[in-house]
């Protein structure tokens, strides 16, 4: 995209989110008509439970992609954090509460390492996180020695499998996270700096924005959320495996991009990302409930992804040309 085109558009591309919202309602409508098990409170809440891990990781991913970066290692960090939870509890003998903190902490450290090398050594984020995708997954495999850790006490499962006021526990956490991330991005200087960095990093640096510190923060945040997702997932399935979170990064990136965040940086919103992962989850679920099988479902998702960006770009150009 040319520099002028990006400068002409405000960083808040609301019409894309609106378009997506319309698509979401259309999809939900069509699917609800197709099957009566889809649009029930139980099912929708359950879908919320199932998509929490991807959603939590997609939020900081939005920040990162807005700055023009990317984080491919989130899936591996989730697996590593999951493993560390089990290892810290069983092998190191820490009390379970502490083990949970340790596992999320490991996620934060992993993210911090990403940010550190991206900053200091100027490794392009794609390459750095591609390498740590392998490295962190490898650490998970090595540390776990292919053993799973199971046998957690009852209270541990409340987060992943329980409910609070009739809503799945993790959904409350997701809600809080969405609100927090939205406020930071839309209402704070930090959030505005992200757009500035994505728009033109050098210019941002010259205007006094602490680019390095910000980048370090967002990658650490990404790792922390991946660690949290790991904890929630272990609580949901009551065991740890080193292959947990495989493919998580692509799901998160798809949601973020679908939501209108530009991979070139400088554009994007949390609202868009939320609609993005909701749309993908409900689409997959609705199709499954309508009797469409898994392999056909992923074809649909792939097509929806390409088509929606296509249509959105087309509308944008028309709007840009007319104004």
């Amino acid at each position, binding site marked *: *995209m*040319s*520099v002028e085109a990006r400068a002409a558009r405000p960083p808040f591309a609301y019409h894309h989110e609106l378009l997506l919202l319309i698509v979401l309602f259309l999809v939900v409508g069509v699917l609800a008509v197709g099957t009566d098990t889809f649009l029930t409170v139980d099912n929708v809440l359950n879908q919320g439970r199932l998509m929490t891990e991807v959603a939590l990781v997609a939020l900081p991913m939005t920040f990162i992609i807005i700055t023009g970066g990317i984080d491919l290692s989130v899936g591996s960090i989730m697996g590593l954090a999951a493993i560390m939870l089990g290892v810290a509890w069983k092998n190191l003998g820490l009390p379970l509460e502490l083990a949970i903190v340790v596992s999320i902490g490991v996620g934060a450290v992993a993210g911090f390492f990403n940010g550190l*090398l991206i900053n200091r*050594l*100027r*490794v*392009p984020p*794609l*390459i*750095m996180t*591609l*390498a*740590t*995708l*392998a*490295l*962190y*997954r*490898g*650490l998970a*495999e*090595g540390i*776990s*020695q*292919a053993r799973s850790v199971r046998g957690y006490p009852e209270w541990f499962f409340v987060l992943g499998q329980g409910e609070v006021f009739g809503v799945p526990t993790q959904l409350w956490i997701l809600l809080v996270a969405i609100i927090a991330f939205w406020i930071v991005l839309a209402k704070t200087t930090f959030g505005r700096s992200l757009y500035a960095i994505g728009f033109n990093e050098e210019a941002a640096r010259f205007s006094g924005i602490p680019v390095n510190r910000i980048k370090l923060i967002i990658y650490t945040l990404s790792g922390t959320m991946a660690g949290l997702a790991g904890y929630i997932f272990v609580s949901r399935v009551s065991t740890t495996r080193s292959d947990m979170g495989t493919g998580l990064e*692509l799901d998160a*990136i*798809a949601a973020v*991009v679908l939501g209108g965040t*530009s*991979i*070139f940086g400088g554009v994007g919103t949390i609202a868009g990302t939320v609609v993005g992962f909701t749309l993908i989850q409900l689409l997959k679920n609705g199709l499954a409930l309508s009797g469409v*099988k*898994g*392999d*056909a*479902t*992923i*074809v649909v*998702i*792939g*097509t929806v*992804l*390409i088509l929606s*960006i*296509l249509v959105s*770009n*087309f509308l944008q150009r028309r709007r840009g040309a007319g104004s």
Partner: protein
Amino acid sequence: MAAAAFSTSAGYRDLRRMVLGQELVLFIAIVLLFVVVGLINPRFVAERNISSIFLGNAYIAVAAIGMSMVIISGNIDISVGSLIGVLATVSGTLAVNGVPIIICWLAPLVIGIAITAGMGAIVAYFHIPSIVVTLGMLSILKGGLISVTGGAWITNLPPEFFLSQTRLLGIPTPIYFMIGLTIAAAAWMRLSATGRAIYAVGGNVEAARLSGIDPAATVVKAFAIHGFFVGIAAVLFATQLSVIQSTVPPNLELTIITASVVGGVSILGGTGTVIGSTLAAILIAAIASSMVFVNISPFWMRAVQGVLILVTVLADLWRRQRQRRGL
């Protein structure tokens, strides 16, 4: 006079750049690996094993050639694994049904070019980021393949089909493909107008446009040529074993992209060579083999691989920093 002309030619600049570049780092790494592991277990450097290392991963090197071109142009293709799976299945299915062998080998090329050129056109003319298009395509291809075949084994292939298992002068055919195509592609990238245009578009689109290059057409061409290499890689992949599992090989795109990236192709576009990516593919394969020879616990293999990738990339960055500081 010839010497003077040579010393200012593009070829000389390239040679000089390569000698000081990532290609050298990789070459040294490969040699070092063979020496060290060879000392630990001499069978590692036996002709059999070296041949296995090159042979088993030739298709990755070939696919990485095309991927490098796409990345140099400033894009990426994460659907390449699914595409190879689809093309290999097409090739095998044609062969089992009695289609002339030469068509079974050429069909993947044609179909590969068609699909990748299509993706390139969407990227270039509709201005959709390549990561989005190829992410969508990955799902479409994978889902489509499984829907149609259910992962069935393709068996009863005619013996003439197995291109990868033939030898020329005692050297397995895929190795000729790997080395020949790498050299041809490297020369083409440097010497042809399109090749240089790909570098230009990846480096600075506006500057390229101002010097008369059509960026959109160039991107489509880069993708199309990538499809050509993917097609060849698919045939090498399909003809290696006597049976084909009509499914998508797991993690293949990651390996190919890693080979390109470790090979020095910059993700920011505009720099890197296909020679680097082929050397990187060889290095990655050699590392995998060496870990079995050295008895590294399989639990740690991926961790060691990740670190080695990181080290190679950091070595390259460090070297560039030193050059910039004029040391």
